[in-house]
């Protein structure tokens, strides 16, 4: 099939076929990453701008490597959080980048929907690198890629996402991707961090981690934001870790060959007990290297398909 999109904004709007196409393309991109000369000319002459309104060394580096392996010219533009509400508007900033020749803009922004605003108003291709509490498509795609690589298939798997679902863009994108590819999705966390009406989109909600983990094939642990403990969402990190931290005895309730994933960086002893973090370490590193392949695939498809003509 052809990929007819100019932007990749989120997994909610992608079809199962489109997601599969990205994952399949990522497999050939992964092969590129294993060569001695890790470079193909797919984006030669294309200027890609990484427009980051949140500090994120990992995601930005992963995008940058992906861009460079495709021979793109890369422009990094990192703005502080405070410049969002003061000074130049997002649209004005992005238009400036277009004027500098950028035809693909990768945007990370603390507010949900910011990439949609750019997609509506600009000529460039927009890649969402995480918007507010909304979507983080490249992270979910690399999670799907990693799961598929380990399990062979996504369909029919039982996948549990644990933690702050309310504020998590990783959770939302993963939920859409997993549901579309035929997995059963569960979420678990304190009721204050489970968003309203999530059961409407075919997700099972658990407040008790033991119940949630029973029989699951994959557990995706979300990083807990330290600042949440000072708000009224839960009493303390200690209590959070006690009820929603993944420990060995709880994990025993899962399927025998359960895979534990984490988008990183891990708070050891909080989301994951240290021994599980060590065991899961290899998968988590796989996620990181798969991230480059998946992002290369996203650029490749956007540039060659609906394209930036």
């Amino acid at each position, binding site marked *: 099939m052809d990929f007819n999109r100019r932007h990749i904004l989120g997994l909610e709007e992608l079809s199962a076929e489109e997601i599969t196409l990205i994952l399949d393309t990522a497999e050939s991109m992964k092969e590129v990453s294993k060569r001695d000369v890790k470079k193909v000319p797919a984006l030669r002459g294309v200027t890609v701008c990484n427009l980051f309104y949140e500090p994120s060394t990992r995601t930005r580096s992963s995008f940058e490597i992906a861009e460079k392996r495709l021979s793109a010219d890369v422009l990094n533009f990192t703005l502080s959080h405070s410049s969002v509400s003061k000074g130049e508007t997002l649209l004005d900033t992005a238009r400036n980048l277009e004027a500098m020749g950028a035809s693909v803009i990768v945007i990370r922004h603390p*507010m949900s929907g910011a990439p949609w605003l750019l997609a509506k108003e600009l000529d460039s291709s927009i890649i969402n690198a995480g918007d507010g509490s909304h979507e983080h498509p490249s992270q979910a795609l690399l999670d799907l890629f990693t799961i598929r690589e380990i399990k062979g298939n996504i369909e029919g798997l039982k996948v549990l996402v644990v933690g702050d679902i309310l504020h998590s863009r990783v959770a939302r994108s993963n939920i859409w991707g997993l549901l579309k590819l035929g997995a059963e999705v569960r979420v678990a966390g304190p009721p204050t961090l489970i968003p309203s*009406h999530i059961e409407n989109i075919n997700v099972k909600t658990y407040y008790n981690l033991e119940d949630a983990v029973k029989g699951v094939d994959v557990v995706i642990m979300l990083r807990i934001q330290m600042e949440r403990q000072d708000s009224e969402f839960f009493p303390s990190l200690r209590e959070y870790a006690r009820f929603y931290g993944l420990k060995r005895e709880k994990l025993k309730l899962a399927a025998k060959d359960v895979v534990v994933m984490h988008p990183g960086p891990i708070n050891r002893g909080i989301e994951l007990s240290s021994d599980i973090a060590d065991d899961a370490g290899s998968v988590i590193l796989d996620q990181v290297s798969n991230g480059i392949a998946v992002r290369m695939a996203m650029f490749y498809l956007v540039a060659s398909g609906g394209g930036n003509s």
Partner: protein
Amino acid sequence: MSILIKGGRIIDPSQDIDKVTNVLIEDGTIKSFPRSATKYEKDRKTQVINARGKIVSPGFVDIHVHLREPGFEHKETIKTGCDSAAAGGFTTIVCMPNTNPVNDNASVTEYILLKARTEGKVNVFPIGAITKGEKGESLAQIGEMYEAGCVGVSDDGMPVMNSKVMRHAMEYVKAFDIPVISHAEDKNLSGSGVMNEGEMSTRLGLEGIPCASEDVMVSRDINVAELTGAHLHICHVSSEASVRLIRAAKKRGVRVTAEVTPHHFTLTDKAVDSYDTNAKMNPPLRGEADMKACIEGLKDGTLDVIATDHAPHSEDEKKVEFNLAPFGIVGLETALPLSLKLVEDKVLTLNQVISKLTDAPSAILKLNRGTLKKGAPADVVIFDPKKKVKIDRETFHSKSKNTPFHGWELKGEINYTIVNGKVVYSA
């Protein structure tokens, strides 16, 4: 100069009139309903307006408008707001006090009225603030604002969170017999929410404002109105439970009235999809059941009036990240066609819709407008309820174009708007 409106269908709910006849306007007031037009057609001093096939009703009254002046003239001025009202068939508008400076003392009230008199095409009645600076702490100069011309008090946009302050406000206004107009919202419960809390907010990853943040305040305000005996008017009702609370309160005789906006009885939070900032308002667009409850409330009289909550914002202010965009949409120039949809959907009769836009709002604030009684100021609108219209924001008379209804095909065209016997708008 006199005007004869010839051959229209006169609908005036204030007098229970619905018949085809002529209306004679003289010296700025309604003179009579003459049977024959012939005599006036020959009189060169009389302007004859042919209204055959059209509806002739009292000019509409909108008791919830933001005119933005003083302070936010880039969004709207008293002049442009009045122009917008006239184009929408409104002859009387009531403006909210959240200007800069806030209308919390008589000098601001006088400024607004002076501007309206000299630059405005339609009648303007101001609402004063309940508390100084709309801070919710101490009472504004309510008596002096009343003397200067304010017809009610409200901290619209900023709820009075302190129940004791609300109690004192409701007690105090009894001396002037004006209503306390409540923007019912528990700000703590709303948090930094930007849309309705529900499946859509979960999908979009936006912080939600639950219906409960409206409901708890509607409930509190009804209780305080019961305690004090004051007239409480609830702004822009949006939730099913609030409609239920108001219905029950009315039943047991509490002095409570309520309004609903066209957008709350027309749209749901699905309109926020793809982050349309023109679907961002407060209270937010709610779910399907809430929208239906608002319609039901209009039908059974729980919601007394249609008011637009006309809230102009410039294009630059709205063309930003959803979280950063201000709440509110313009409403004066889309109110009639959206309200007429209720007639087409057989929710209300045409006469009921007109009543909710004329005598009912006038009665809530004792404006003595919204009627074609003999001797009343000649505020009249002539419109064609069947004429197809396509909403085009570029044709708006308002300074701002922030509407979610751009491109909608509806019915209902304003032909003439007459204020105090003067034609202020004609299509």
